[in-house]
C-alpha cells in the first residue's frame, strides 16, 4: 500500500501502529510517517469481499 499523498510505501508494521487517539471507536487509518497523511485501512469485510471476487 502506498501513501496517497507522498507515494511512500506503507508497510504492514505501520498498520499495527496506534493512531493519534482522536477518533471515537478507534483508528481506522494509517498515518504516513513521512508526510502525516491519513490513509484509510481497508476493512476486513472489504478485503474478504474483494479477495473472493478476485479468486472467482
Amino acid at each position, binding site marked *: 500500500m502506498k501513501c*496517497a*499523498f*507522498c*507515494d*511512500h*510505501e506503507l*508497510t504492514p*508494521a*505501520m498498520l499495527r501502529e496506534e493512531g*493519534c487517539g*482522536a*477518533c*471515537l*471507536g478507534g483508528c*481506522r*487509518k494509517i*498515518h504516513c*510517517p*513521512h*508526510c*502525516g*497523511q*491519513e490513509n*484509510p*485501512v*481497508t*476493512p476486513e469485510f*472489504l478485503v474478504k469481499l*474483494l479477495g473472493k471476487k478476485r479468486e472467482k
Partner: protein
Amino acid sequence: MSASHKDSPGEKKIILVGCPNVGKSVVFNSLTGAYTTVSNYPGTSVEVSRGHCQIAGEHYQVLDTPGMYALLPITEEERVGRRILFEEDPHVVVHVVDARNLERMLPMTIQLVEAGLPVLLLVNIIDEAERVGMRIDTALLAEKLGIPVVAAAIGRKRGLGELRQAIAAYRPQRATFAYATDLERDIQRIAGQIHGRYRLERRSLALLLLQRDEELQERVRAVEGTQAAAIEIVVNEVIFERRVDLHLRVSLERKRICKGLLDQVVTQREGIRPAVAERLSALTMNPWTGVPLLLLVLYFGLYQFVGGFGAGTVVDLLEGTLFEEHLNPWVIAWFERHVPWYWLRELVVGEYGLFTLGVRYAVAIILPIVGTFFLAFAMIEDSGYFPRLAMLVDRVFKYLGLNGRAVIPIVLGFGCDTMATVVTRTLETVRERVIATLLLALVIPCSAQMGVILGLLSGVPGALTVWVVTLTGIFLLVGLLTAKILPGERPMFYMEIPPLRLPQPRNVLVKTLTRMQWYFLEIFPLFMIASVLLWAGKLSGALAWLVDAMRPVMGLLGLPDDTAAAFIFGFFRRDFGAAGLYDLQTNGLLSPVQLTVAAVTLTLFVPCVAQFLIMKKERGWKVSLLIFVVVTTLAFAVGWLLNRLLLATGVLG
C-alpha cells in the same frame, strides 16, 4: 519460511538497499536462487531475507533490506535497514535504483557513499527508461560518483552478469561531494569535534547530527563520554545560527549535487516528447495554468458532482422520498399507536428523535453527500493531484509572504483537520505551529464538512461563491497578519512529486467505501448522543433556555431563532450543524442571505470535539482555549459583518 540465522565464517556479505518497488527482491532472487531464509531482525518485527551465492569462486551471503528512502530513518524499517548497513560489515552495498527516477533516488547513493560504505549503484529497470527515450551514460556516472555503476533490467535477466562481475571485482573507493561553503564550514566544525570510532564517516555523522538524528545522538553520547557535551553544544550552535530547517537545507543541497552529477549523464532522445502525464503535471503546478485547472477540478469534481448529484439527486431520493414519504410516517404512526409514553415517543420519533433526527440526518442527508464527496476525493487523490496542489499552493503562498512549510498540514486539513493538527508538530517553531493550528481550526473545512456545505449551498445561486470568497479572504487576512507577526526569511518548501496517473477504479472504490464506513461508524454514535441530549434539553426546558440565550446572537447575524439549534448541533460536529441548516433550508425557513451567513459562521465556528481534544494535546490547555475563543469570536464577527454587507449590497437578495 522463517529461521534464525548464523553467519558462515569467511563468507563476504552483499547488502541490497533501496526504495520500495525498485526490484530489490528480484535482484535478491536472481543472485541467490531458491534457498533463502526470512527472519525477524534481532529485537525487531522487521523481516530480513538472507540467501547465499557464489561469484567467481567466492561465497557470498546476500541480505535484502527493507525499503528505505534515506539514511536518516523515519520508520522502523529504515532504522533496521541502517542497522544492517553498519552492523553487518558488508563487502559491497548494492544500491538498487529505478532508472526512470534516477534523480529522485540518487541522493541516497550520495548518503551511502558519504557514510563510507562500499557502494555499487545498480540502475535497474533500464529497459523501461529506454522505452520512454531516456539514455543513461553509466560510465560517466561511475566516473563522477567514484563507484561502479551497472545498468540492468534484472526482471528480464539483463545486466545480471555485469552485476556479478562488478561485485567480484569490487575495490572500495572514496568520493567526497561538496556542499555549499557555509554548510561545509558547519560540517567541518562538527566533524572536528568528533574523536571516537564509528562505523560511518565523521562527515556523514556530522550531517546526521545536524538533522537531529536521535539514535546517533545517543550513540555519540555513549562513544564520546564527557566529550559528547561539547559536540552537542556545537551542533546546537549551528542549528541556532542557521535558524532554518537543516534537514530541508541538506536535502536541497543534495538535490543540487545530483543535478550536477546527472548533467550529460541522462539525455532524452530527440523526437520523443514528454508524456502527456508529465506535461499535465507541469501545468498543474504552474500558477497561471494551475489555478484555472484547480477551479475546473473544484467545479466539476466537487460542485457539480457532490453538490448537484450527491446533495441533490441522492439526498432527494433518500431524505425526500424514502424517509419523508415512507419510513417516517410509518415509524411515527407505529409509535403513536403502540407507545403510550410521551417521553419515549419524543425520544424516538419526536422533533429531536433518535430516528427522526439522528438516523435521518446520518443516513439520508450526511452519508450520501459525504459519500459522493469521498468518491470525488478518492479519484483526485488517486491521480496524484494533491502533492501538486501543495506545490501550487506553496507558490501562491510565497507571493503573499506566507510560510511554505505550513502547506502540508494545511492541504492535509482538507482531508481531516484533526490529523492535520497533529502534523503541525513538524513545523519548526512554536509560533508557526500555533498559527497553523489556528488556520486549521478557523478556515480549513475538513472533507466531511466541505461536502455537506457544498451540498447545502449548491442549490442557491451565488451562495457558494460568497462562501469561498469569504473564507479565502479570511485565510489570506489571517495569513498576512501572521506573516507580519512572524517576520524573517521565508522557509523553503520541498517535497518529492510522485507521478501523475489515471485513478484506478478498484483503489477509488476501496478508499470511498472504507472512508464511508469509517465516517459512518464515527458520526453515528455522536448523532445518537446529540439526539438524546437535545431530547433531554427539550423535555427539561434547558434547550429552550439555551435557544433564548442565543437569540440576541442569532438576531445580530440576521438569523431566525430556530437556527440556534443548528449551532448547538455544530458544537458536536460542524457537519451535524450543517445538516441542521439543510433541514431549515428545505423547510423554507432560511433566505439565501441567511443560509450563506449561517454556513460561513458555522464553517468558521469551533472545531469538532476530536479536533479540540487534539489541539489541547498538541498545544496545551492555554493555547487551545485561546484558539477556541478567537475562532468563536471571529466566526460570529464575520457572520455579523457578512450579513450587513449582503443586505447593504443586495447580493443574493
